[in-house]
């Protein structure tokens, strides 16, 4: 028994060690490539470790005004989608779980079910609607399309976290004459914080990395987001992979930081409503 459980431990660590290599190698290679001088990037057989380290690839991409513009657009879209998603989903989750006596749950399930449509269903209608409203190639147009994905899941995540919070505090506050709006701000917001933060990060990460809608609805540089710009950089004749890897590293940072902070909550949120991400 003692020996066989040691065998299990060692096997498990080997499996997870290999998984760690599988998971982290693409990132490690991305990072190494991004700090290589160009001569080392195109060397064959490959120089695994560069002879010297350079930041010229980062300088090159950050001096590209299109890239900076795209980063800015991505930031605006992501922050706006996150704010709007929370502004709409937190009161709705509160109303449906705490105020509606019967029928709140079916409505919530209906809201979650609306994320079930495959994105292809929206390609044409969004295009026609945005075009007729003059919102093609604009950030507000893109923000609108992202809400179709973030709202159902954010509402579900917040509602789920509210389910686990006892109503006693709210009842006490209610007796003291606390209204609904103040209730959401002073009572619900702090105690449901893990769920709200998780929902917010979900919305942010999704908008930061979304690619298909951005490709369809923001063809001009004015509204192009960073993922779309990456696609255009790939379409050039001479693909500069070192520069692309530097861009990829920079684009990963805004996802890596919040993820590192809330890694724990995110996992439970992911298994709750995770058809889209």
């Amino acid at each position, binding site marked *: 028994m003692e020996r066989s459980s040691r065998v299990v431990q060692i096997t498990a660590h080997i499996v997870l060690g290999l998984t760690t290599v599988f998971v982290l190698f693409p990132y490690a290679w991305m990072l190494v490539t991004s700090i290589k001088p160009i001569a080392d990037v195109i060397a064959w057989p490959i120089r695994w470790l560069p002879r010297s380290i350079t930041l010229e690839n980062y300088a090159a991409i950050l001096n590209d005004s299109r890239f900076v513009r795209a980063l800015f657009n991505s930031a605006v879209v992501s922050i706006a989608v996150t704010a709007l998603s929370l502004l709409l989903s937190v009161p*709705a989750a509160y109303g449906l779980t705490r105020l509606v006596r019967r029928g709140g749950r079916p409505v919530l399930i209906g809201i979650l079910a609306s994320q079930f449509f495959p994105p292809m269903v929206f390609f*044409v209608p969004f295009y026609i609607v945005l075009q007729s409203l003059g919102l093609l190639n604009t950030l507000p147009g893109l923000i609108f399309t992202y809400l179709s994905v973030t709202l159902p899941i954010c509402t579900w995540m917040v509602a789920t976290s509210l389910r686990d919070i006892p109503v006693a505090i709210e009842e006490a506050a209610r007796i003291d004459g606390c209204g609904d709006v103040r209730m959401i701000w002073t009572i619900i917001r702090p105690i449901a914080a893990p769920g709200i933060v998780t929902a917010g990060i979900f919305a942010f990460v999704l908008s930061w990395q979304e690619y298909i809608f951005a490709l369809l609805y923001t063809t001009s540089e004015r509204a192009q987001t960073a993922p779309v710009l990456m696609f255009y950089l790939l379409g050039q004749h001479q693909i500069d992979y070192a520069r*692309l890897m530097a861009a990829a590293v920079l684009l990963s940072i805004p996802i890596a930081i919040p993820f590192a902070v809330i890694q724990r909550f995110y996992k439970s949120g992911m298994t709750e409503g995770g058809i889209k991400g």
Partner: protein
Amino acid sequence: MIARSTVRGYAFASPLMIVLAAAVILPALYNAGLAFFKYDAVRDAWRFTGATNFTHLLAQDRFWNAFWVTLLWVAGNIALQLAIGMAVALALNAVASLRAFYSAVVMVPWVSSFVIVAVVFLWLYHPDLGVLNDMLMRLGLIDRPIAWLASPGMAQFSLILANTWKFFPLVAITLFTGLQGIPRELLQASTIDGANRLETLRYIIIPLLAPSIATAVLLSTIWAFNAFTLSIIMTGGGPLGATEVMGLYIYKIAFDSFDFGMAAAASLLLFVAILIITVVYLRVADPASEAAD
């Protein structure tokens, strides 16, 4: 009193419902309607054509190519993700140390940007400068570089591998959560009864894990049906249409040929296909989950 708070509840939910109606429900219905019209770009007008879009679609070789490519793509993704996800979940469940570290690492691909995954794998797979070929050649496993994305069979496999990297965490964490729900006494009892580890896995763990496995398979199926970012970026659907999955095909009908009506029809068919799969899943998997409770 009750009615009043219910009214307030719906009032708080109404902004969300209005936006959802405008951003999800109405566009989906509009799309379903468009499937029966044809857009005339010259006159900028729509013409009702009945089921013509559907009959034209089903008569196209490219549609059936996309159909089979998608089936292969979905099956390959499920198989690979389930194999890796199960191994990782069992290992995570077994380790006595470093579990938090490993589960954080496993989550990394899931939050990775799809475009970055595509770009980095393009670089890993690069036929002349790719590190994957370099590694395999140094290990003596191949004697000349493999063209990962240039031959039809290989390209499909390479994309499935990259997509699995991105999505196995969802399967692994779903299965791991299921494993944690299996009572330890049950496993101990089976060991006392003389079952070896494989028998315990086969007769105790897998049957009890069936609901989680079903959920994981459904999630990775839906994801695989919807995902075409990798094929659009890495291969553009080629070579010879070998990676032109349904999503990419619909994208091309809509925005290369500008046949909006037919794209709407194709997306409607895809939606119905996913709906049927899900309903069948709910019928098959739900009794199992009740039994497990």
